[in-house]
């Protein structure tokens, strides 16, 4: 009984101040690193646009066409970017702002990063977001997510020059291998991580099922011509409705004990 009460007081005390994890996750050094990634992407874009402007006349492209391409890309990205914003805001309470900006907003995606975070937290015996989610666990989780993202970049850095030089040899790999294997890996990972939430508490089950049902509904409705935007907004909507269900069920006392 005593540990439970102690924990309860600790969390009430923490409620007034930001939680220790969020205090650590929002330290200025992490903000500077996050803004560094933003700056790098911006600089890269400027260099690329200059190079494109220089090459354009040789391939018969007018400055007007370059501008049109830029503007079209920008407009096409508004919807998907705002959809990512919605998802990212839902994860601020878990990862803090700088980590969310870099991991969810830029380099990674919400599915891979939360999956990696959950796996990494599991290796320490902690539960992501639960009472065992300490600053130390956050550091390990953030490290594992970032290293995972680094592997993607490393693979890009190594494979792109090879593919560029080696013609298209690697693309002639059995096409079934290139579809079935990654699909099986993704399905195995996400289904396993989803089912691992089931034993945690009835609220976890309700949240999982609600979010899955809302996503399914969004994807079905997205087939209606006027509702295609639901394809990209589905994830954010499903997460929000799932969290609303979680809040109601948690308030009804169905949450994890202790």
């Amino acid at each position, binding site marked *: 009984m005593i540990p439970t009460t102690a924990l309860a007081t600790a969390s009430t005390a923490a409620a007034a101040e930001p939680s220790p994890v969020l205090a650590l996750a929002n330290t200025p050094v992490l903000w500077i690193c996050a803004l560094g990634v933003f700056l790098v992407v911006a600089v*890269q874009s400027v260099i690329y646009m200059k190079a494109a402007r220089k090459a*354009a006349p040789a391939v018969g492209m007018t400055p007007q066409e370059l501008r049109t391409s830029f503007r079209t890309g*920008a407009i096409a990205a508004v919807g998907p970017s705002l959809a990512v914003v919605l998802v990212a805001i839902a994860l601020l309470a878990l990862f803090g702002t700088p980590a969310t900006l870099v991991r969810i907003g830029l380099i990674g995606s919400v599915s891979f990063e939360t999956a990696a975070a959950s796996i990494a937290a599991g290796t320490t015996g902690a539960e992501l977001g639960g009472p065992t989610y300490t600053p130390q666990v956050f550091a390990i989780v953030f490290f594992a997510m970032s290293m995972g993202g680094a592997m993607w970049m490393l693979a890009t850095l190594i494979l792109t020059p090879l593919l560029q030089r080696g013609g298209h040899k690697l693309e002639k790999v059995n096409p079934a291998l290139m579809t079935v294997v*990654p699909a099986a890996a993704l*399905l195995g990972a996400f289904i*396993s991580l989803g089912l691992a939430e089931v034993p945690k508490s009835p609220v976890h089950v309700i949240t999982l099922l609600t979010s899955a049902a809302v*996503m399914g509904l969004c994807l079905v409705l997205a087939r209606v011509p006027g509702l295609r935007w639901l394809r990209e907004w589905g994830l954010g909507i499903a997460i929000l409705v799932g969290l609303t269900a979680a809040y109601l069920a948690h308030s009804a006392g169905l949450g994890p004990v202790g």
Partner: protein
Amino acid sequence: MTATLTGPQTAAGMGEFERTTSRWGRLTMIAGLVFSLAGPLYLVFFADLGVTATQLFTAFAAVAGTFFVIWLVEPLTYFPILGSASMYQAFMIGNISNKLLPAALIAQSSIGAKPGTPRGSLAAVMAICGAAAVHLVSLFVFVGLLGTWLISVIPPDVTEVVRIYVLPSVMGAVIIQAIVSLKQVRATIVAFVVAVLVLFVLVPLVPSLAMVATAIVVLTTLVIGWFVRKREAGAGQDATPEVP
């Protein structure tokens, strides 16, 4: 369109473009890599949290066991669509299939350029720059500034619920998205059966396997999924990845 200008002039112009973007694309990506690792490394070495090398290695190994296939396959899948210049953009900006590819394709069609041609590549690069600009601004304003403020005014009991349950709410939606977009019925069934057996039979029997459970599910699903895959009549040429 492009046919009128093929020849040495085009080749020279695109050659220089390829050289510049390859060199600077690689350098900027390495810079992005360094910045993205600097944050966690700072916490590990200077925040005095008592993190051990073993903990870091174990956590990374568990993530690697689950995702190493995807690390290799994604660059291979997107290279033919993006071309080398955009590869260095796309894997740093993220959200490739749901944002960057559509942006590039719409831009190409708006100026009547075909993918794979020099005009198509330049249009794609410009479109991705445009998408990156919008994305950076909206992330900074709506997540960086507005989101941080929002978190500070939301009642603590709400943020606590969000923190505890955001993982199942993400996973529920992501599972459905994966099942619908990948369209691999057999692999889906295999994944469900394997995951149930590993999580609710194997792990209770051998609790020490809990931390690598996901990796075990992924590798088993991969092997079984490959043997029970739907074999196409012919050489399986129609089984190429579906791209919009």
